[in-house]
């Protein structure tokens, strides 16, 4: 039967399948209210010959869903590898990779359905993200259906859709309720008033068919009433079967249902014949989840408890049902013993697959029933839950759990565990911005652990304090505690703590320009890579990149930045990737690639829920580009940056923000304000010995007039500039890869040749504000042959291509593939993809061959590798 008013959607799905068949993978988020017909639509497409391979997975409406539930549904169909990895409890990354391999190797195109994704567990959301980012050359269409009314702005699904919003191949569609005409068609045989039926049901297809199946009479006010009215006409035993089925979940084995409801198989038939239950291969389920919800809601609380107990007993007797299902029924049955048996196991299973949200919920469930447990066992549950909450960013709840565990461990006199909980409280307090608490707990942890036999807990407590000192910029203390942690972790052969401590000591040193600091972080990186400690790898790349970049060391920082971005992208470490991306915006700004700076900044700022510290760098870069271009809204970005920086309370964020504001004020013609902003960085000591910040602060402070001292600790280019050597300063800035600052130095010289050179650079960069200032100076010197007005749009690049796009074009002309270009430029091949489409778009061409030909015709036959700065 044709679905009414769904032809455009069927067509859309068919066209997406054709793209997938051609190797261009697609992901469609299909939204619509419950009962609008998402599943019917997908079944229809899945049943057509256009999708030779269908993998269908459904997310559970359980309060705490099974981890990777949908993958469990289709694992067997997806091939031996996926199924066996899942059974063998392999790391989920391996499961994801195997699924991709299966989709590539199977019959094309594959249709992979993730039904009711709004109910997914965390690991399944990650799977959607993982697939959505790897659609290239994936001969598959992935459709994730979801209820629009469930996916509010804070729902994790909304976050996933936001993360994938700009990924190539990802799109959204929405199913609308039926029109009055369609309802009339459906109701034609019933003799019901179609207008009334449409108004009452809102055109919801499930509601409409439910009413029609109920046959005549007044239209029930809600879909729930319609379902119950239909169920009420069945025999008592059939009605009981429906209750049991509602309790047992969306799908149930017929023999389990019959046993649980204590009915004969003929009663099951009665339910299927009435159309309330539908047989799907070897399991039974409701015709629609809305029907199950309606029946579930109609069971009184007292009976519900008994039903859950019966369901659990039946599952246990048959060794059926997963841990999540058993924990769910145990909870419903209020059976403390059973909850304490299943919930922690279910939590561990979820944690293993990185469904940390679900793991935390299972531990919370166990804790609700833990009143009678011995203190030590309760403490262990609190600690386990605290860790899962920490991993999901719920620091406040994690801290609560640590506090509870601490009290219980104290009561039991377990000093080692007391110290470990204190150390965790220190870390969590830091995440919550409570630095005083963080410091206090850090020291309490050490005091508790020091008298005991030295172990991993003490090593970690030392390393934690080293980290706090490093973040404060207290190099001496950071090194002292960090070295102690390194020595102890080595004697314990604990490589994770060693990597952590090496990073803390190295970063503390590197931040103040001590070269050997970088070697320490590199050592931490090596250990983390060897041991596969992903978070430590990401942290090492981040600290290598930021501790060099914050010193104005682009040459050393940029390669780390690129490697870090590649690693965090490949491993889906989003928080780290966004933090690095904010720094890429700064690095591109400094390098004079402002379009790329804007792109990186926008990409950092776009996803919902980006952490403030990642936003700050992006906002500073964006605000600075606007100020330098003479564009409006510089203040919008820089005000937000300052607000966030002040909130963080860290000088490493406040300093650069204030300096950017000083520059913007000066460009806007307010040198007084520039001085105020620069001095607001505080005294030199507040800048924690960062020579780059000390230099730029002194320079911008000097713009306000008054005596300009030359701080001895300022970085050389700034020192030269402050000491009245603009040409020397310009050379040093150029040497470091800061073209704008080089021109800025020349613009202070007052000599015509220097000013002309500065003007040329400013014009090339599109620095309208500074260019106008220099032009004024030149005119005051009597120079008459300047261009009428410095034009920000005067671009040396042909066809409006950016510098990076020209680089990519050169490599296309050399005949390189995207992956090779990516390697050459240290970016992902996806980024190259974006550049290639931008190039083709700007040139109005369709293929790379045409682009190569265009390049030969317009820019000379052969790219000269010597004409651009080397890329490493």
């Amino acid at each position, binding site marked *: 039967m044709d679905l009414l008013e769904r032809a455009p959607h069927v067509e859309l799905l068919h066209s997406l399948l054709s793209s997938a068949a051609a190797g261009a993978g697609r992901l469609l988020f299909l939204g619509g209210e419950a009962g609008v017909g998402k599943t019917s639509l997908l079944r229809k497409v899945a049943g057509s010959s256009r999708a030779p391979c269908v993998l269908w997975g459904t997310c559970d409406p359980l309060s705490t869903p099974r981890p990777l539930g949908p993958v469990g549904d289709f694992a067997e169909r997806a091939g031996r590898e996926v199924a066996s990895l899942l059974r063998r409890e392999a790391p989920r990354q391996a499961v994801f990779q195997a699924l991709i391999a299966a989709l590539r190797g199977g019959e094309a195109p594959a249709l992979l359905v993730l039904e009711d994704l709004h109910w997914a567990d965390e690991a399944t959301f990650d799977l959607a993200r993982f697939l959505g980012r790897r659609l290239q050359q994936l001969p598959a269409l992935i459709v994730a259906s979801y209820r629009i009314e469930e996916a509010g702005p804070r729902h994790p699904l909304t976050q996933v859709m936001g993360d994938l919003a700009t990924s190539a191949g990802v799109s959204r569609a929405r199913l609308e309720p039926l029109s009055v005409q369609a309802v009339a068609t459906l109701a034609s045989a019933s003799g019901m008033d179609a207008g009334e039926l449409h108004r009452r049901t809102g055109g919801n297809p499930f509601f409409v068919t439910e009413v029609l199946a109920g046959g005549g009479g007044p239209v029930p006010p809600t879909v729930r009433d319609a379902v119950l009215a239909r169920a009420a006409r069945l025999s008592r035993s059939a009605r009981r079967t429906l209750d049991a089925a509602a309790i047992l979940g969306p799908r149930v084995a017929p023999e389990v249902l019959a046993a649980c409801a204590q009915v004969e198989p003929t009663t099951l038939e009665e339910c299927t014949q009435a159309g309330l239950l539908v047989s799907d291969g070897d399991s039974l389920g409701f015709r629609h989840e809305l029907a199950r919800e309606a029946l579930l809601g109609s069971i009184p609380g007292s009976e519900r408890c008994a039903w859950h107990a019966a369901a659990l007993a039946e599952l246990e007797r048959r060794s059926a049902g997963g841990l999540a299902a058993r924990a769910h029924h145990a909870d419903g049955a209020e059976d403390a013993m059973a909850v304490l048996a299943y919930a922690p196991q279910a939590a561990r299973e979820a944690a293993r697959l990185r469904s940390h949200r679900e793991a935390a919920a299972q531990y919370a469930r166990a804790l609700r029933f833990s009143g009678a447990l011995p203190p030590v066992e309760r403490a262990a549950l609190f600690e386990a839950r605290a860790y899962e909450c920490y991993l999901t960013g719920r620091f406040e709840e994690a801290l609560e759990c640590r506090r509870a565990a601490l009290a219980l461990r104290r009561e039991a006199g377990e000093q080692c565990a007391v110290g470990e909980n204190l150390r965790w409280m220190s870390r969590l307090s830091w995440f919550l911005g409570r630095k005083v608490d963080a410091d206090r707990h850090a020291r309490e942890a050490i005091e508790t652990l020091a008298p005991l036999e030295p172990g991993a807990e003490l090593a970690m407590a030392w390393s934690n304090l080293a980290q706090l000192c490093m973040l404060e910029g207290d190099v001496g203390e950071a090194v002292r505690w960090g070295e102690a942690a390194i020595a102890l972790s080595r004697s314990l052969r604990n490589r994770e703590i060693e990597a952590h401590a090496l990073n803390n000591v190295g970063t503390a040193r590197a931040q103040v320009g001590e070269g050997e600091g970088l070697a320490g972080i590199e050592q931490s990186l090596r250990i983390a890579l060897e041991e596969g400690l992903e978070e430590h790898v990401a942290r090492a790349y981040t600290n290598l990149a930021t501790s060099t970049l914050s010193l104005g060391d682009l040459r050393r920082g940029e390669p780390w930045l690129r490697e870090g971005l590649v690693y965090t992208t490949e491993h889906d470490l989003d928080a780290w990737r966004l933090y690095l991306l904010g720094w890429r915006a700064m690095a591109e700004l400094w390098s004079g690639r402002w379009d790329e700076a804007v792109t990186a900044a926008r990409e950092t700022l776009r996803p919902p829920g980006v952490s403030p510290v990642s936003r700050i760098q992006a906002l500073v870069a964006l605000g600075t*580009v606007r100020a330098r271009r003479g564009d409006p809204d510089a203040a919008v970005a820089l005000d937000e940056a300052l607000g966030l920086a002040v909130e963080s309370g860290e000088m490493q964020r406040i300093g650069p923000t204030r300096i950017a504001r000083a520059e913007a004020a000066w460009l806007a013609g307010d040198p007084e304000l520039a001085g105020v902003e620069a001095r607001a960085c505080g005294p030199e000591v507040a800048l924690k010995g960062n020579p780059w910040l000390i230099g730029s602060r002194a320079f911008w402070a000097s713009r306000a007039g008054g005596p300009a001292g030359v701080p001895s600790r300022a970085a050389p280019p700034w020192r030269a500039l402050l000491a009245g050597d603009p040409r020397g300063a310009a050379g040093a800035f150029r040497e470091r890869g800061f073209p704008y600052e080089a021109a800025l130095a020349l613009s202070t010289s007052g000599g015509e040749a220097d000013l002309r050179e500065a003007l040329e650079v400013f014009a090339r960069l599109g620095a309208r504000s500074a260019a106008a200032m220099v032009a004024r100076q030149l005119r005051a010197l009597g120079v008459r042959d300047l261009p009428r007005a410095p*034009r920000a*749009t005067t671009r040396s690049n042909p066809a409006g291509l950016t510098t990076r796009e020209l680089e990519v074009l050169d490599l296309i002309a050399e005949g390189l593939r995207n992956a090779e270009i990516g390697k050459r430029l240290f970016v992902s091949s996806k980024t190259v993809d974006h550049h290639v489409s931008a190039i083709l778009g700007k040139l109005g061409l369709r293929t790379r061959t045409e682009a190569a030909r265009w390049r030969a015709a317009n820019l000379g036959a052969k790219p000269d590798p010597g004409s651009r700065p080397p890329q490493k």
Partner: protein
Amino acid sequence: MPRYVIERTFPEGLHIPVTAEGAAAIASVVANNADQAVTWVHSYVSEDRKKTFCVYDGPDPEAVRRVAEKNRLPIDRITRVSVLDPYFYR
């Protein structure tokens, strides 16, 4: 959505013929703008057709620049503006 006035200079003068070709040029500008959620409200053109003042709605200045680049249109200056209605003061 903020509103911006964009000043542009066309040294050779701006000539958009009222023909199918001119209409196509305008349509392509409008389509490119839509990609970045930018709306071209209207423009004022100087008598000698060498300078234009274009009123645009857009999410931010970068979006305005991006579409200008795509449309191969020059930019001298972008100014964020709001409406001042003289008759409001009566």
